[in-house]
Every structure is written in structure tokens, then in C-alpha cells.
């Protein structure tokens, strides 16, 4: 089951503390002083109704067990350090986060906790008001997973909006806004599922964690919690291709592993949202689509040969037409974008070319989508833009038979 190696010191602490209701796992190292201050606010996070005692909570962070004094916070909240995962420091940002998330989950699974709330290292989520919409559905209503809905402007999180969320929704049938979460909460059953080994004992390649996809596969209940916090964007300073490679590559990998499941899923289910809706974030800064369209056109000129290995002739023809358009006229149809993502996922599976090169060739297409989207929503409110993104997700669902068909009989026709 759990793969974390628990040092004797930590095991001793776990034995002393005994059974816990909620393990709050910080995904990565944390400033203990800041953590102490934030964690203390968690007292009063209840479990079984008004008359019941407050939940027994442990806050765990990556550190050296026993290296620090053991603080017991007000309300009986305990702090423990768990050994940092070996994969941390890989240089791949999300892989590091996923490794830390897994360690937190494995610790909670070893502890047989009733729930585990995984929080991002900036601790922004760590206050009772924000934690409650995550933990209460799990502890009180046996919901299997609560995913976050972060406030976002219309130009925020575009890789998620254009690719991660709609592809996850179409494949796994759950309308989850942020399928690659920085914060989420799982129940005991999900803890077991997420920490058990994969199909074969020897296949332990590091992977990002897509909790809602995993929970969808065993039919678990997924809720979403509206949170008012925004994490600092981790992509600043990172090359776009690197980001796309890590994120899309992981989701494509997941699609290959879970093909037997998602090919049976039709349509999608709502993941009920709890908490007050986040106020829309209205951005005033306009986005200039010109450099992105230029990147797309350069991509057409330089990468056409690679695209030919991935995309069918009809798609290439559409791209050729797009490359001739003036910037103001540049619009990438949703169906075209969805089919291209499906074709790239298929080429990833088929290993038609080196996977890094393949995902690199996706970047100009993505920039083309962004140029198209930003122009479409330039005059829209955040809510209107949100509806636009939802429309894209529906198109991903509509185009799913195209993907299934090609997955089952891959030929570059059409």
C-alpha cells in the first residue's frame, strides 16, 4: 500500500498521537513558524455535528522528523514532519509537487486517517474558513474527494482551460474545474486508491497526481470547494514548452494507462460546488495576440513536417488556412483544437516521434488557440469567458468519438 518510509521517530510520534480524523499534508517544505501560526486556526473544524468533539487534526510538512521541537498547538492540533520524497528537487515543478502530495497521502494512509487535506506549500488555504468546505464534505458526508475552484481571471490558467480541464472532463466524465489541484481533500477510501501500487509492481515512474480522474475511475463522489485564495503562478520564468510538456505529457500518459476506463465514459457529471462562489476576477490588461499568431505561423512554416506525422490532412488544411489569416481574423474553431489535442494524445501513445519533440510541436498550436481565445473574450466579462471555456469543454466531449475511433484504429486519414 503506502510507499513512504516512515522513520522510527515519526512512527513513535504517530503512535503517541493515535488515531486522527484529518491529516493536513503540506506538499513540500514549510516555514514552521508560519505553519504553527496558520495551523492553530484550524481548531474547531468539526466532524460529526454540533455535539461531537472537534476533529483530531495533524498538520504534516516535509522536514526532518525529530529535528524540531514538537509543537502542540492550541486545540490539540499536532505538527509532524514527514521525510521529503526522494523525487523532490527533480527540477520539474509539478513533479516535485506531486511527489510531495503523494508523500502526504501515504503518510495519511499509513495513519489510517479519515481524511487527508493536501495543501500547497504557500499555506494560503490553511485557515478554518477555507479548510471547512474541503474537509466537511469528506468527514461529514463521506464525499470521496473535494477539488478546489480558484478565482481566476479570463486570461488566467489558460493551459488548464484549454487542455487539462476539458480533456479530463471529456475522458473521465467529471466536470472538474481544476483537475491538477494544488489543494484537495480525500476520504479514507480514496487514500487507499491513490496510494496503492499501479498495475505492475515494477512500473513506478513518477507521475503527476490527477485525483479527480482517479476517483472518477472507481465511481467515487467528487465535490468542488470554492476557495478565495490564489496561489502565485508557478510558471513565471518557465519556458512554455517545458510547462506544456510536463502537464500535457502527464495527462496523455494517464490517458494511455487508463484507456480501458475512459473509452466507456459518455457524457459528464457535475461535480457539485460548495462554498460561496468566488467573485470574478476582472482583468483590465489587454492581451496582444500578434506575437502568438506570429508564433503559430512560424510553427506552420517550420513544424509542418512534424505536424504531418500527427495530424490528418483535413486538419493540416485548416491550419494552413489559419496561417494565412490576418491577426484580427484569427479564430481557431473549438472542434479543430479539440481534435488536435486528441491527435497529439494519440501520437504520444503511438510514439510516432520522440515525445519531447512531439509536445514541443504542440506549443505553436497552443499559442494559436490562446491568440484566438483572447481575441474572442477581449470584450467579455470573466463570467462570459467562463461560459466560453465551458463551451470548449462541451466540444471536447462532442469530439470524443473521434478520439476513441482513432485510438482504437490509428490511421492518419480524414
Amino acid at each position, binding site marked *: 500500500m503506502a510507499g513512504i518510509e516512515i522513520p522510527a521517530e515519526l512512527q513513535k510520534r504517530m503512535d503517541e498521537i493515535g488515531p486522527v480524523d484529518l491529516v493536513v499534508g503540506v506538499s513540500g517544505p514549510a516555514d514552521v513558524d508560519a505553519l504553527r501560526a496558520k495551523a492553530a486556526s484550524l481548531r474547531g473544524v468539526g466532524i460529526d455535528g454540533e455535539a461531537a468533539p472537534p476533529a483530531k487534526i495533524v498538520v504534516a510538512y516535509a522536514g526532518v522528523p525529530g529535528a524540531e521541537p514538537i509543537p502542540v498547538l492550541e486545540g490539540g492540533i499536532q505538527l509532524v514532519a514527514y521525510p521529503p520524497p526522494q523525487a523532490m528537487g527533480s527540477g520539474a515543478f509539478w513533479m516535485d509537487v506531486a511527489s510531495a502530495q503523494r508523500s502526504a497521502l501515504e503518510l495519511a494512509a499509513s495513519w489510517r486517517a479519515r481524511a487527508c487535506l493536501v495543501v500547497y506549500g504557500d499555506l494560503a488555504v490553511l485557515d478554518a474558513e477555507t479548510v471547512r468546505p474541503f474537509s466537511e464534505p469528506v468527514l461529514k458526508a463521506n464525499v470521496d474527494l473535494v477539488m478546489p475552484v480558484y478565482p481566476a481571471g479570463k486570461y488566467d490558467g489558460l493551459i488548464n482551460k484549454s487542455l487539462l480541464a476539458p480533456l479530463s472532463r471529456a475522458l473521465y*466524465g467529471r466536470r472538474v474545474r481544476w483537475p491538477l489541484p494544488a489543494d484537495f481533500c480525500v476520504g479514507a477510501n480514496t487514500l487507499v486508491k491513490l496510494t496503492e501500487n499501479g498495475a505492475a509492481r515494477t512500473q513506478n515512474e513518477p507521475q503527476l497526481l490527477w485525483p479527480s480522474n482517479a476517483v472518477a475511475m472507481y465511481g467515487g463522489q467528487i465535490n468542488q470547494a470554492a476557495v478565495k485564495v490564489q496561489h502565485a503562478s508557478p510558471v513565471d520564468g518557465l519556458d512554455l514548452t517545458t510547462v506544456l510538456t510536463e502537464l500535457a505529457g502527464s495527462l496523455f500518459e494517464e490517458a494511455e494507462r487508463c484507456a480501458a476506463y475512459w473509452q*466507456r465514459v459518455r457524457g459528464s457529471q457535475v461535480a457539485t460546488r460548495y462554498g460561496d462562489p468566488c467573485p470574478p476576477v476582472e482583468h483590465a490588461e489587454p492581451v496582444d495576440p500578434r506575437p502568438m499568431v506570429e508564433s503559430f505561423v512560424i510553427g506552420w512554416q517550420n513544424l509542418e513536417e512534424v505536424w504531418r506525422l500527427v495530424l490528418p490532412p483535413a486538419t493540416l488544411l485548416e491550419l494552413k488556412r489559419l496561417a494565412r489569416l490576418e491577426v484580427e481574423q484569427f479564430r481557431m474553431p473549438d472542434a479543430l483544437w479539440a481534435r488536435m489535442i486528441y491527435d497529439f494524445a494519440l501520437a504520444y501513445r503511438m510514439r510516432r516521434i520522440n515525445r519531447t519533440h512531439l509536445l514541443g510541436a504542440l506549443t505553436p498550436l497552443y499559442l494559436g488557440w490562446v491568440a484566438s481565445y483572447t481575441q474572442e473574450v477581449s470584450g467579455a466579462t470573466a463570467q462570459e469567458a467562463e461560459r466560453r471555456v465551458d463551451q470548449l469543454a462541451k466540444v471536447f466531449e462532442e469530439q470524443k468519438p473521434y478520439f476513441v*475511433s482513432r485510438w*482504437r484504429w490509428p490511421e492518419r486519414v480524414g
Partner: protein
Amino acid sequence: MASGEAVKKKRAGSAIDPLWYRDAIFYELHVKAFADSNNDGIGDFQGLIRKLDYIVDLGATCIWLLPFFPSPLRDDGYDISDYMNVHPSYGTIEDFRQFLNVAHERGLQVMIELVVNHTSDQHPWFQAARNAPAGSPERDFYVWSDTDQRYQDARIIFTDTEKSNWSWDPVAQAYFWHRFFSHQPDLNFDNPRVLEEVLKVLRFWLDMGVDALRLDAVPYLVERDGTNCENLAETHAIIKAIREALDAEYEGRMILAEANQPPANVRSYLGDADECHMAFHFPLMPRIYMALSQEDRLPITDIMAQTPEIPESCQWGLFLRNHDELTLEMVTGDERDYMYLAYSGDPRMRINVGIRRRLAPLVDNNRGRIELLNSLLFSFPGTPILYYGDEIGMGDNIYLGDRNGVRTPMQWSGDRNAGFSRANPARLYSPVIMDAIWGYEAINVEAQEADPSSLLNWMRNMIALRKLFKVFGRGTLRFLEPENKKILAYLREYDGEQVLCVANLSRVWQPVQLDLAGFAGMVPVEMLGYVEFPAIGKGYYPLTLGPYGFLWLELQTASAGAGDEQEE
């Protein structure tokens, strides 16, 4: 434990699912024939390691290795002289260990041979036996007699070469018993020490991490006067003892019975899930070919009707061809004559009681027939077993002796020696196939990998598709009975999955009306292309299939899936 005794942890195999073999795709190969790394003309484990990605890409999940143990090689390695080592031509035990680890890293399971009905006459046990006094423990490892008249009801299996199951040993001054070649004396399982030694061999390989063992020639372990010496209760007791030892110490492992017997007898080798986990379905294979040639489903439906239910944890092993002849022992005399006429025009194609040809030559290199037969292999209840080279439609060489014509080097490319070896061609363990139709320049992996329409790519797609649906490995089977007997139609069902398979055994177009009344309202979705067909109504469901065409249709409810609720 109350007594304080330590609980011995069972040693797990490489697969998580203990029933992994029910969903597996086996790939049978001979190390010597697959890839030669040191250019001595003989394939070896290092060569095989280099080709593992090919097997993974094909979609196979378990490699079945033919015997690779030290042997005089008078029966292609089934005459073993040391059970716990590797034949030096193929590498070392460390090479095998490396191969096993690399295979496991790639998610492949590995099955090897446990050939314990007999040994080579060069095995130290036999050499000790023949030199030991009669009645001594050493002599008692084999079956001896002062006369060659015992067990007269036992048939001779290798009819082309053997006249008796007894041979005189001048050293021992006694006859010894052998069901196969005279250089392969049968072990005496009435001697408990033999089973002890067999279990040592079993543990040796399982401790190393081997996932499965094929029990060779399993019906013949024990002999009794007045019987045909096959399928005896005492033989089943030995298999139960092997299984008990396996279950006591290991998890996730599997043993497979090679019992070329009628279905009811083969069934007995699965016991009450306390003998073998798997057994080959030998009688099905010739009947598939017969049905194809006669353009009539009856040979298939008839043999399947005779096939008994098996325990939940057990599985049939299905194959179209293997390293032996297409055996005709389990068909009637008339059926055998028909098969010889239909599939072995040249007498050199026959050996013993069977036909020594590969899949593609058997069906005249007709791509439609090859695909149809594979569609049956992949959709019938059982685990499909592919024979190396058949995935590219390799040919055979009927001018080579014994069954060597179907054991020629794997054809990797159009390079020298088919890319199998860089050795001098004269040094190869077997000549590569070189004629214009079947030769390596026409048929090879490299060319077919580059050709999107090749048989190899077709096989890859079919295997990948099959692996998406557990129903094929685990589901029930029910035949439909349409009036048109050239059409074979059957339903597979498992855990809510329902798949309708329809196959045209004829060389010309065929219409069919299927009685699908029990599925009215459901929508058949063609599985290869994910195309919805018209919904099933209350009347007959009409279909038309092209020559050797087949359809796999997943029956879906009109509103199947995760639902389509609206956002609240």
C-alpha cells in the same frame, strides 16, 4: 501466531493481479530463433533482451520461452540434461536473470517450461540410474522393466520415429519407458524422491521471479497396467502436489497444462482450481481451420459445445499455431483425412499426426483469412497465445526435418540473415527463409513497421483493442444460431460488458439475420472504428459481411455512460 512461529511471507510474482493470466497476451518464442547478440548463429538471451521493446510494442504481456536449458538438443531442448541452468549457446544463468528483470521492468510476465515427464538420457539422474543396481533409489528415478510388454494399451505418440514406448538399455540390462523419443526416458513419479526433485526445480525458477510454468506432457506422468497410461488419478495427484507447493510459497504465479486431450479430459487438469491455472484448448485449433476450409461454423460450435465450464480462476490457452505440428490427434479419422487434403498438399507438410506449417502458409497467405482467424483467437474465451513470426505472416520451410521448418530465425529486416545474426550464413542454427514469397526480403519486421497497412500493425491494433475489454479474457460465451451456417456469431458478456462477435467464414459476401430480441433498444457500436450501428429492434437484426469479414460490436444502452447531468 499463538505459538510464536514466524509467518513465512509468500513470494509475489511481477503482476499485481493474481488472475493476470486471464487478461494476458502470450508470445511464444525460442531463444535460439529470436535474436543473436554474439553472432555465433544462435539466438541468445542478450539478443532477446534487445528485442523486448518489440514484444512490448506488439502488445504481448507474457513471454513464453521454449526450453533453454542444457540439453543434447535432440528434441529441440525438450530433452533436458540440467534443469537449473541455461544452455551455453543461449547465455548464462546471469543472462537469464537479467532478461527476467528487464522483462519485468517493461511490465512483461515470463513463462518457462517445466518438462518433467521425462529427461534427456544424458541427464545425470539417468546416467546414475542405468549404472545403479536394480531396486536401488537411483535406479528407481525412471521406469524400468524386464519386458517390453507392459502398458501395451498406451499409444505411441511419435509414430514417425518410434515403434515402441520401451527401449532396451544395455548398461542397465533392462527396458526403460519413454512416451516420446527413445532418448527421453520417463521419470518415475511413483518414487516420492522424483517429486521432491521436481519441486526443487520449481522453487529454483520461481524464487528467481519466473511468473509461470508450462507443464509439458502432463497427462503421461504416471503409468498403470491395464490403462492407456494417460490422465490417471495418480497423475492428477502429482499435479495437485505441485500446485499445493506453489500456493504455499508463492503468489501471483501460474502453471499451465499441456494436455493434448479431448476437452473433458483437459478440463480435469484444472481440477477444482487446485491443479493447473490454465490448460491449452488443443481440439479447438484444428476445428477452426476445418470451419474455415468448409465455410461452416459447425466444427467450432460443436467442439465448444463439448467444452465444459471451468473454475472462475482458471483459463483456456488458445492458439492458432505453435512450435509443434498442427496436431490432428483430437479429431476423427474422417476429419483428419479432410484436414490433410485441405492443408497439406505436399506430403512433406505432414509429421506424426499433424501438419507442420505456420499460420500464413496454412491459409495461402490470404490476409483476410489470417485476420479472421486472429479475430477468433482474440475474441474466443481464453488467453491468446501468439507464435513468434506469425504476427508478420512468416512462412515455413518444409524441407527441414522434424518440426524445424516452423522454427526458423525471426525475420527482423532485409539485411543479411534477416537481421537475426551477423554470423556467416552457413553458421546459422537454421537457414533463414529465402524464397520470393516468404523470404526475409519480402516479409520482415522492419518493412512492416514502416507500412501502416501491414499485418504487424494490424496485429498491434487488434491486441491493443482486445486489451481494452476484459470481457474477452473473462466473459461468458453464447453462440447465436443464424440460419446462414457460414456465419459464426457469439456473445461475450462480463460485468456489464456485452460484445457481439460476428464472423464470415466464407470467401464471398454473406447476409445474416441475427436473433437479438433480448437486446432490443441497445445500440451496437462497432469496436474497431467506434461506429454506431442502427439500434436493435424486436425483429431479426440484419448484417452483411464481406469475404472473411468480421464484426465486433459492443452493445451499449442508448444512454450508457457517466450520465449527462446539467450544472446546478
